[in-house]
C-alpha cells in the first residue's frame, strides 16, 4: 500500500468534504467548521491510515458524522440556503432572460436537493455530484447498498416530481 501523505492525499479532499458538509448542514460557516474538525480528526488518527481501504471514504464518513452531530446540536434552527453561491451560467449564446431562467433552475436543483431528507440528500450528493459508486456510498453512510439505492431512487423521484410541478406553474 502506498504511503499516504496528509498534504497530498487528505487536504485536496477539502472541497469534496465541504460540499458534503454543506449539503448536510446547509450552512457555509458550519460546513467549514465541520471540514476543519474532520481534518483534525483524520490527522489525529494517522496511525490507522495504512490499514484503511480508502482514505477518501474514511474522511467522508467522519465528515458526515460530524455534520450530523452539528445539525443535531444546531437543533431546530432551520438554516436557509446561502445566497449568492449560484454557479456561473455556462449557457453560451443564451439571452439574458434565458440565462436568468437557467440560473434559477440551477438554484432550484440545489434547493430541491436541500429539501430532501438528510439520507437522500447525502446519498444523492455523493452519487450525482461526487460520482461515487453505490458500494462506496454504502460504506460512507454505513447502510446497505440496497438502502442507498432506495434513498437515491426516492430522491430522484422527488426531484422529478418537483421539477414537473415547477414546470407546470412556471418559475
Amino acid at each position, binding site marked *: 500500500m502506498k504511503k499516504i501523505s496528509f498534504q497530498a492525499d487528505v487536504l485536496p479532499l*477539502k*472541497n469534496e468534504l*465541504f460540499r458534503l458538509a454543506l449539503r448536510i448542514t446547509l450552512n457555509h460557516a458550519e460546513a467549514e467548521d465541520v471540514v476543519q474538525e474532520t481534518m483534525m480528526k483524520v490527522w489525529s488518527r494517522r496511525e490507522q491510515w495504512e490499514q484503511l481501504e480508502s482514505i477518501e471514504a474514511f474522511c467522508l464518513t467522519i465528515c458526515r458524522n460530524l455534520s450530523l452531530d452539528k445539525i443535531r446540536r444546531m437543533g431546530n434552527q432551520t438554516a436557509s440556503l446561502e445566497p449568492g453561491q449560484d454557479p456561473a451560467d455556462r449557457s453560451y449564446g443564451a439571452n439574458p432572460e434565458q440565462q436568468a431562467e*437557467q440560473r434559477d433552475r440551477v438554484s432550484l436543483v440545489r434547493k430541491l436537493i436541500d429539501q430532501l431528507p438528510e439520507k437522500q440528500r447525502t446519498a444523492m450528493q455523493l452519487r450525482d455530484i461526487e460520482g461515487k*459508486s453505490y458500494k462506496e456510498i454504502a460504506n460512507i453512510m454505513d447502510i446497505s447498498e440496497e438502502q442507498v439505492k432506495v434513498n*437515491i431512487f426516492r430522491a*430522484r423521484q422527488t426531484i422529478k416530481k418537483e*421539477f414537473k410541478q415547477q414546470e407546470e406553474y412556471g418559475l
Partner: protein
Amino acid sequence: MDYKYIEQLLERYFNAETSLEEESILRTFFSQTDVPAEMQQWRPLFTVEHTEELDDEFDARILEMISEEESHTVVARRVSLTQRLKPLFKAAAVVAIFLTIGGALQAPWDNSWNTPDDYAALQQQMDTINYTPVQAENMVTGAADSTSVMLKDHPKD
C-alpha cells in the same frame, strides 16, 4: 441526432437504474450547448457545478493547526511512555506484597498436618506413650541434663 437513447437513460436515471458510466454520459450530454428544447428542463440536474469551495487560507490554517498539534503530541507521547509503565510497576509491587504476605501465612500451615489421617496417626502415637505430662516434662529435662552431662563431663551424683 437520435435522442431516444438519452431519453431512455433519463428514464432509467430517475428509477435509479443507471450505472456511473451512464450517468456520466448524461452529464456530458447535458453539458453541451445544443440540448433539445424538450430536454432542456433536465439540464440543471446534470450541470451542477462545483462552485462551493474552500480557499487556500483554509489549507494554511489546517496545516498550522496540525503542526501545532504534532509538537504537542510529541511531548505528550514522551511523557506517556514512562507513565505507561508506572501502573505496571505499581501492580507488580502490589503482587509482590501479596505474595510475601501469602507466603508468610502459608508457612505455619505447611508445618502442620495436611490430612486428618496425619493428625490421627500423631494422636495414636501420643496415646501409646504412657507417661503423664509431668513425667514427660521430667524426661525432657532429664534429657537436657544428660546432654549437659555429656558436654560438660562432671558427675552430679
